[in-house]
């Protein structure tokens, strides 16, 4: 996984499926880098639907996208060589997730020696209208 990310770090622009993880592959997660910013994408497919009428994304899929985004950003920004442990995640749902591609970005609010706090935001067609936001705490050392 770290070899995978190391290789990407030397590439200024990419759009790469997160195929290294079976779960990420099932979810349709991709990692994109453009203009220096890292974005995680959840490609829409019918298996992501949580409520058929009207068709809406399952809340769990959006939560999962936000956690994955925070994790990727943390590994990207630091020299960590192991997967940090997620302590907790708090998700605020702001809008219905439409049956379309979703995008998310995260930033590191605080990083100490032992813990990191990240904020992540997900949107769909309009970046001005977030679908959900999350605060995530990670434990950096066992």
């Amino acid at each position: 996984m770290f070899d995978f990310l190391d290789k990407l770090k030397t590439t200024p622009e990419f759009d790469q499926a997160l195929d290294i993880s079976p779960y990420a592959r099932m979810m349709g997660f991709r990692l994109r880098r453009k203009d220096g910013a890292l974005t995680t994408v959840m490609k829409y497919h019918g298996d992501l639907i949580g409520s058929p009428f009207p068709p809406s994304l399952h809340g769990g899929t959006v939560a999962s996208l936000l956690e994955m985004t925070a994790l990727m950003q943390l590994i990207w920004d630091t020299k960590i060589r192991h997967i940090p442990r997620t302590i907790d995640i708090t998700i605020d749902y702001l809008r219905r997730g439409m049956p379309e591609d979703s995008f998310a970005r995260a930033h590191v609010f605080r990083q100490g020696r032992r813990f990191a706090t990240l904020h992540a935001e997900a949107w769909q067609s309009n970046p001005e209208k977030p679908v959900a936001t999350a605060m995530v705490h990670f434990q950096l050392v066992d």
Partner: protein
Amino acid sequence: MIRDPGDIELNKLVLMIPHARRMGFRFLEKTGDSLVIEMPYNPELEVLPRSGLMANGAITTLLDTALGAAVYDQFDAYRRIVTLDLRVDFFEKPRPFSSVTVKTRCLKVTEQIVYVQGDAFCSDDSSAIAHGVAVFSYADMEEG
């Protein structure tokens, strides 16, 4: 263990949710207003191949589904249910190659809001691997 028509409804509810079906979630039982919903071990849900560890995202999704079902179960008529927020505490890694079950508890129903929580367990273990707490709003189907 499906014992009464209400339980059959809950099983159908889980199967009606495309993502829950894809994840293989199964309604197991209902005691009082507490539901038990299971996510069988599935290699497709592993965070890394052959690790046996199902992803946190899968556990969060199981909690969200179970808590939503617990809210649905509070009402006789069909209501439109919306998650306002969800908080998940990850206590420890799931046991490799183990199924995960969530047991819910409804904390409070007000005129507009339902507060619920749930614990996630691996197989028959007695200590929870994760805990979720959520707030849902609800409305009649006609209301906006």
